[in-house]
């Protein structure tokens, strides 16, 4: 064969046609049981929910919302309890004139100021503060009897 001549296409064409004919024959001679399984597979596939459906995201979104809710509830339950003094509930009422047992920084400053005030000692000495220190006095208790 002259090497400059293009290859003869006829053998390729005949080969391709023969291969295709056998392939088509094989596809046409599937056993009935196998054809039935393919048919069932196709029907099952077409009956399956489409992956393109907008509802395909419903389950992941619902699961995510549930997880966020559970996380929120968990964080709320693990939060440190609020000190009762901050809420005011359950505390014993104190007299406005008697300083608190745990005075704040401002209260301590005011006490120091009182100690330096000579009028404070004059007031103590005049006996006006005695009813406040006497538990039997009616004036010292605001609670109803």
């Amino acid at each position, binding site marked *: 064969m002259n090497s400059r001549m293009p*290859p003869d*296409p006829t*053998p*390729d*064409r*005949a*080969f*391709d046609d*023969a*291969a*295709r004919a*056998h*392939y*088509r*024959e*094989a*596809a*046409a*001679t*599937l*056993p*009935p049981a*196998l*054809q039935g*399984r*393919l*048919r069932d*597979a*196709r029907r*099952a*596939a*077409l009956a*399956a929910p*489409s*992956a*393109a459906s907008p509802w395909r995201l419903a389950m992941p979104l619902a699961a995510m919302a549930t997880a966020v809710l559970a996380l929120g509830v968990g964080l709320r339950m693990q939060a440190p309890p609020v000190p009762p003094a901050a809420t005011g509930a359950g505390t014993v009422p104190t007299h406005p004139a008697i300083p608190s047992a745990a005075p704040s920084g401002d209260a301590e400053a005011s006490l120091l100021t009182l100690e330096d005030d000579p009028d404070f000692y004059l007031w103590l000495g005049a006996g006006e503060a005695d009813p406040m220190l006497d538990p039997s006095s009616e004036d010292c208790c605001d609670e109803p009897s």
Partner: protein
Amino acid sequence: MSPDAGPEPSCAASLPTTLDGFLAGIEARAFRFAEIGLRHREDALDAVQDAMIRMLVYRERPPVEWTPLFWSVLRSRIVDQQRRRMFRLRWLVSAGEDDADHAIAWADHSADPVRAQEGRAAYAQLSSALQALPARQREAFQLRILEELDVADTATAMGCSAGAVKTHLSRAREALQRHLQDYR
């Protein structure tokens, strides 16, 4: 004809308009395609069914696009099945497997038993020669010659360039013709 030449593109006017009709027309050939690639009947059925399910995503696409999409999806399912099989370590249990899963399923509808037997033997020979090819060459021959896809659709289905399709096809045809002298 050039070495990469194949059949003329099929006529789009004859395409089915529903996905059900499309799949019904292609499912038998799809099974044979997968059977050659996987050499196992049950795995081939699984691959075809998976491909059908995944085709639902493309239901709204124009029917003319379904053919290359389907072969692309089926090809990827076959590759997945092959990888999964490696994890299953089939070679450890191959001795206990049912040989019927590897035999070519063939129904004898012909009135001429001799002719039917010849057809089955010829297909078995072709199938065996295709299985001996590298995967890309086999896919190029199956899609371009047996399924009559044009070069562009074959490239789409294989996920490669048109030039690569022509190269794979040329090598596949050369190897097959060496093995299948009687097909000429």
